[in-house]
């Protein structure tokens, strides 16, 4: 008798509901492909059933292999070709048959990614709100209708009694001629460059005359530097990687010409990135041929654990978070067990990594720079620093001593009223300027100076031939100007307190600081401080990071094996090789966006026409970007101008940001932010406030190029590619079938608006841009081609057998995603076999041995100057105080408002901390039932001493309250509130005076509560609603009142400073 399995019954079953959610349409996915059982083989382990791609359960993005069974992702393991999952990793040339038999390691989230892709709450069709924003009422609408409405604008919500006319892209794509936009941008640059107020005004008047035909397209003709109305279109994102980033650029920047494309960096570790930027600025030629500080990278360094002997982890959660457990944990467990590596953990919470640590030091939150300053004092006093390295004042000097980098610590600083004013320049001493040739032109520049043999000597930072070795500690007068070296200033700053004094500020023992300093200076260059968001997400975050980074410079460990290292990735844009597809040059009508951004970044407030004295209405960020917390409140306030159409991509500002309820408030009123369109896979905590939610592809269904992390010394570029059939429904754009996705939305809008850069000859080389793969396969082709014009460093071509396996492994993908002919055409026939080779391996990864170079250096070097004195900071002003930014590492007191005023919050006694446990990634992993089975809820961790003092018991329910949230609630808008209540857990592993909760729980959306689609209630899953999310207790800035606290220098939002109370809840 033939048995009918439940599986087969399923195929016969009828689909109920509207099919808007995946769960209602799961059986549609049961596409029986030809995949069958092969006698004697474990079929999911075979190469023809494996696709190599990249995880995105967190941003570590481990390269993975997705093992398929009848087209279903049945198991995910690590891709052993990569340093993430195997150590040492296998060489790229490994044959794919062998490769299939080796699995690399992966964390539990990576293992559970299948449940992200097949989450029953995933949306498959476009949802349009059927009630006020945030009401949880939706109707599904055809994709084409959504595209038309977003493009054209109109009374989209008249049927629910809302007579407003919603803006459409057509109107705000105001300036469409790139030449006009370029001319306007140049005119605005001139306005900003003019310091004289009257002359500045005259330039504004000239702008109005020169562009009189276009004034209607400007946001405010009297303030042309706000830019055109195009800037009133904004796109903001959470997790966005290369590929999709450029896809967004193509549409929003190159196409629509808006300057408002902003990421989420400051909610992660913005101040860490922007410390890296300040320290990597180079004194050289900028893009316009001007000799100035330029080229600072938004990046940071981390420790090379492959060779380090001693590591100090500051606010870095190595076993559970960071970048990331599979990548870094193995080095620590092996090293600590075999004795080749020791590490210390600085964290107020006893994170899991204290288990293998030589020392756990738990400072008061936000005071860790005091520990670093104490170490600095000890190191200067004991003469335990790398004087040889620090003495190199320029590139030639570094070369002479076989170093790859150098610092400006020996450069002279001009003092004013006892304070560092800026770098001393030759002209200050009446010395002649230097002349340099650049691009065939002679350029003059005013060089900095160092002190050599009792005399000031000019320093040409990038000179390959004239080495300057400056004295380290200089304190003198030159031509009546008081000057000091940067290192002298650091030494003096470190002597501001005794070791005991610094220890007291941090709430630690002086002996702890001494231990750290001694150990740190006992391993040559194989000792390193590795800093992450625990140090960065404070009001003093920038200076915390700068102080720890400075310590690394003091032992000269930059670019050294076991030292302070940076990420290296292979180019995907084709710029380095100049092809095969130089995507930076392939847009036929690229719009040069200009104007003040909505978050007021990268520009000096004083230079703009809206300068109105200090303090500014809201902060400006001349040295940071992607200031996430400022986006929605600024848009709602209309400062510097209102935002009319806001696109959201894969983020959750309401859930992820401190004081997230302020972000909700900003989104509620359509009169404040005109139209909100969101792209995501599930209706989450933030996008529930959108007007439209357009379903997206999960990480297992789409393209991206994941990039790398600072601790990875190998040059790499993992590829994310479609591994399973798409979940969202299929639509037609440009005559091509494709799944609804972020890409389909933008392609659909481009088609509707007839934007240049899309269609049959969308690329300026005449190639078509009609499908997402038309774009991504060009990037894949670039990656496979290599970085040399002759492609001599490209990947090999796939053999016939490899091509066969490549095709077989994709036999479950529908033509809307994979079509061999179309992919080949998109990549170019000539490059196809290289692309196959690349995709068969999930990217490109440098061989293990090749990351190590001679002289104990790493091969993929930073190789530039590291600033210990930040001249750009010194010469710019904090727009809230009107005072210059402090230009060196130091310790500032945490918990300040935007005006730099100390906050106290009397009556609130505990400092609120957050952390990651390895089973959750903030807003988007609660759908993973395999993970919630391990930790079904989270807790408020409290030291048992505090609990006793407060009379709290284990498992007791408490409400979290703070000075700006005394009721302890989430205000969700529309009269809905969620109490902020959680369970206390008594532990020893936390510094008394603090309370910590792990992120990822306490959801109010994302399938945790009921929503209504087409009048039908979709029940929420109580497993997704457990635990507490206490971000709404985090301090709202008392001056701005609509946003959390921020680091005004580095841009970071503040996570670890708010004073709270735990109030017992009856029952």
């Amino acid at each position, binding site marked *: 008798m033939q048995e009918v399995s439940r599986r087969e019954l399923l195929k016969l079953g009828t689909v109920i509901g509207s099919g808007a959610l995946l769960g209602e349409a799961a*059986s549609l996915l049961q596409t029986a492909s030809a995949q069958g059982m092969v006698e004697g083989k474990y079929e999911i382990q075979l190469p023809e059933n494996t696709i190599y791609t990249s995880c995105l359960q967190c941003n570590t993005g481990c390269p993975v292999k997705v093992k398929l069974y009848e087209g279903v992702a049945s198991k995910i393991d690590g891709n052993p070709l990569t340093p993430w999952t195997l150590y040492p990793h296998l060489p790229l040339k*490994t044959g794919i048959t*062998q490769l299939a038999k080796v699995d690399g*390691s992966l964390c539990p989230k990576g293992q559970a990614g299948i*449940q992200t892709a097949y989450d029953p709450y995933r949306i498959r069709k476009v949802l349009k709100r059927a009630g006020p924003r945030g009401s949880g009422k939706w109707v599904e609408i055809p994709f084409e209708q959504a595209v038309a409405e977003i493009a054209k604008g109109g009374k989209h919500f008249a049927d629910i009694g809302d007579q407003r006319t919603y803006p459409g892209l057509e109107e705000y794509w105001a300036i469409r001629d790139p030449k006009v936009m370029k001319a306007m941008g140049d005119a605005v640059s001139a306005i900003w460059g003019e310091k004289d107020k009257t002359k500045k005004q005259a330039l504004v008047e000239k702008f109005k005359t020169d562009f009189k035909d276009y004034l209607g397209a400007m946001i405010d003709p009297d303030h042309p530097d706000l830019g055109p109305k195009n800037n009133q279109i904004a796109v903001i994102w959470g997790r966005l990687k290369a590929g999709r980033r450029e896809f967004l650029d193509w549409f929003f920047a190159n196409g629509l010409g808006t300057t408002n494309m902003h990421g989420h960096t400051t909610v992660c570790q913005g101040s860490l990135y922007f410390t890296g930027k300040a320290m990597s600025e180079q004194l050289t030629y900028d893009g316009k041929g001007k000799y100035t500080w330029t080229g600072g990278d938004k990046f940071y360094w981390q420790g090379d654990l492959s060779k380090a002997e001693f590591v100090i982890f500051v606010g870095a959660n190595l076993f559970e978070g960071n970048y990331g457990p*599979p990548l870094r944990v*193995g080095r620590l467990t*092996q090293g600590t067990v075999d004795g080749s590596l020791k590490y210390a953990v600085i964290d107020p919470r006893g994170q899991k990594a204290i288990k293998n640590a030589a020392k*756990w030091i738990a400072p008061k939150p936000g005071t860790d720079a005091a520990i670093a300053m104490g170490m600095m004092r000890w190191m200067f006093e004991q003469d335990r620093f790398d004087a040889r390295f620090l003495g190199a004042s320029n590139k030639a000097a570094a070369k002479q001593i076989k170093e790859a980098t150098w610092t400006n610590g020996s450069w002279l600083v001009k003092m004013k009223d006892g304070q560092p004013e800026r770098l001393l320049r030759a002209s200050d001493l009446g010395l002649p300027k230097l002349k340099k040739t650049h691009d065939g032109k002679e350029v003059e520049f005013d060089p900095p100076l160092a002190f050599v043999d009792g005399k000031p000597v000019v320093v040409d930072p990038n000179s390959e031939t004239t080495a300057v070795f400056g004295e380290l500690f200089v304190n003198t007068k030159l031509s009546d100007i008081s000057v000091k070296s940067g290192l002298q200033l650091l030494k003096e700053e470190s002597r501001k307190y005794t070791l005991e004094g610094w220890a007291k500020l941090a709430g630690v023992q002086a002996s702890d600081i001494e231990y750290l300093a001694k150990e740190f200076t006992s391993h040559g260059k194989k000792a390193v401080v590795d800093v992450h968001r625990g140090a960065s997400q404070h009001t003093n975050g920038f200076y915390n990071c700068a102080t720890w980074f400075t310590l690394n410079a003091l032992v000269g460990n930059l670019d050294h094996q076991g030292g302070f290292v940076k990420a290296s990735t292979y180019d995907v844009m084709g710029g380095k090789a100049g092809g095969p597809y130089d995507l930076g040059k392939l847009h036929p009508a690229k719009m040069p966006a200009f104007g003040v951004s909505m978050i007021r970044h990268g520009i000096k407030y004083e230079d703009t026409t809206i300068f109105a004295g200090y303090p500014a209405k809201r902060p400006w960020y001349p040295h940071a970007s992607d200031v996430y917390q400022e986006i929605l409140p600024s848009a709602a306030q209309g400062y510097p101008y209102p935002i009319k159409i806001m696109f959201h991509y894969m983020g959750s500002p309401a859930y992820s940001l401190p004081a997230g309820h302020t972000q909700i408030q900003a989104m509620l009123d359509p009169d404040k932010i005109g139209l909100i369109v969101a792209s995501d896979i599930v209706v989450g905590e933030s996008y529930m406030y959108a007007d439209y939610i357009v379903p997206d592809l999960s990480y297992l269904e789409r393209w991206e190029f994941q990039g790398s992390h600072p601790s990875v010394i190998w040059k790499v570029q993992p590829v994310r590619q479609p591994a399973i059939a798409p979940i969202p429904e299929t639509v037609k754009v440009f005559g091509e079938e494709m799944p609804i996705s972020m890409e389909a939305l933008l392609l659909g809008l481009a088609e509707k608006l007839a934007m240049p850069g899309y269609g049959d000859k969308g690329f300026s080389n005449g190639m078509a841009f009609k499908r997402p793969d038309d774009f991504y396969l060009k990037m894949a082709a670039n990656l496979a081609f290599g970085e040399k014009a002759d492609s001599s460093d490209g990947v090999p071509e796939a053999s016939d057998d490899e091509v066969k396996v490549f095709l077989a492994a994709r036999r479950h993908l529908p033509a809307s995603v994979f079509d061999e002919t179309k992919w080949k055409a998109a990549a170019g026939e000539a490059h196809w076999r290289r692309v196959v080779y690349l995709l068969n391996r999930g990217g490109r990864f440098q061989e293990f041995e090749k990351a190590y170079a001679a002289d104990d250096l790493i091969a993929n070097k930073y190789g530039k100057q590291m600033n210990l004195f930040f001249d750009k900071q010194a010469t710019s002003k904090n727009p809230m105080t009107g005072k210059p930014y402090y230009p060196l590492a130091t310790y500032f007191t945490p918990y300040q408002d935007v005006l730099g005023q100390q906050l106290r919050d009397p009556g609130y006694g505990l400092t609120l901390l957050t952390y990651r446990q390895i089973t959750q990634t903030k807003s988007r992993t609660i759908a993973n039932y395999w993970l919630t089975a391990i930790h079904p809820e989270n807790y408020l961790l409290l030291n048992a001493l505090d609990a006793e003092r407060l009379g709290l018991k284990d498992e007791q329910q408490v409400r979290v309250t703070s000075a700006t949230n005394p009721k302890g609630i989430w205000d969700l808008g529309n009269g809905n509130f969620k109490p902020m209540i959680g369970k206390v857990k008594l532990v*020893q592993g936390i510094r008394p005076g603090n309370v910590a909760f792990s992120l990822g729980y306490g959801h109010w959306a994302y399938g945790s509560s009921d929503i209504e689609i087409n009048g039908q209630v979709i029940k929420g899953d109580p497993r997704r609603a457990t635990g507490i999310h206490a971000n709404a207790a985090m301090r709202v800035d008392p001056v701005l009142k609509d946003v959390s606290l921020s680091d005004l220098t580095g841009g970071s939002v503040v996570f670890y400073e708010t004073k709270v109370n735990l109030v017992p809840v009856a029952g």
Partner: protein
Amino acid sequence: MDQSRYRVKEPPILSSTEDRRAFLAKFASTVFAGLVAPGAIAQAQAQPAQSPAASGVKEGVKEDVLLRMQREVEKALQNPKRKWSMVIDLRKCVGCHACTVSCVAENRLPPGVVYRPVSEREIGVYPNVTYRFVPQPCMQCDDPPCVPACPYDATWKRNDGIVEIDYLKCVGCDKCIPPCPYGARTHDYGDFWTDKTPGKGEMPYEQLPVYEWGIKAEREADNGPMDKVRKCSFCLHRISQGLLPQCVNTCIGRATFFGDATDPSSLVAELIKQPNVMRLKEEKGTNPRVYYLV
């Protein structure tokens, strides 16, 4: 019913030289040819004392310990007298639960069934605090109390040391559950992860066949595990293919080791000889095949 088996229960005995050659061609050479320099293999075998786990210094790291163990599994498959053992180095366990989840994914475990839980314990008083994480798979005891408890002969001790369950014979009476001092056995009550959601327990990954014990079966079929008692099989279906058990493979701290304890050159054999080795609940007389380094 035997058609659904993709591999015989007991490992093949390789009698003739030809068989052996064919075996080698199929497994060992296909995996490692070209991956690892022959010298590295020779060195690893010649100098067992310098195993990465025991004394390896990073300068000398030539290959990931996973590759060595996988090679040893393939070698063991040629040894009819092999006895599988597992060693868990508690010093290297970071309590990440990757093994737990990886096992759930690999063996399609439903809610309520877990083969390899990891317990977490905080030890000490602030500021002298540490943690202990203890993974606990089935101990594959040499004197397993669960086996005699089964009234249906549905569970037995294999020659290779693994305690097996035959789902065709198991009736889910649960009599084997209480005798196990390690709580290694759980009953599959037929739940699905997305029951009570719009997915109704029918999401694609919930419909996949199970490969446990080397038998490919639908979960709800007669030879499948639903309504039966389940436990860790050391991923028999993987090791018979020359792969490591999932928990070993995915361990990010490289804390779990696996191999043939009868092969003195194997990593597990070396580790079992370490002075800091122990077994759980030794006093129960179960003779576990899972060892811990402390």
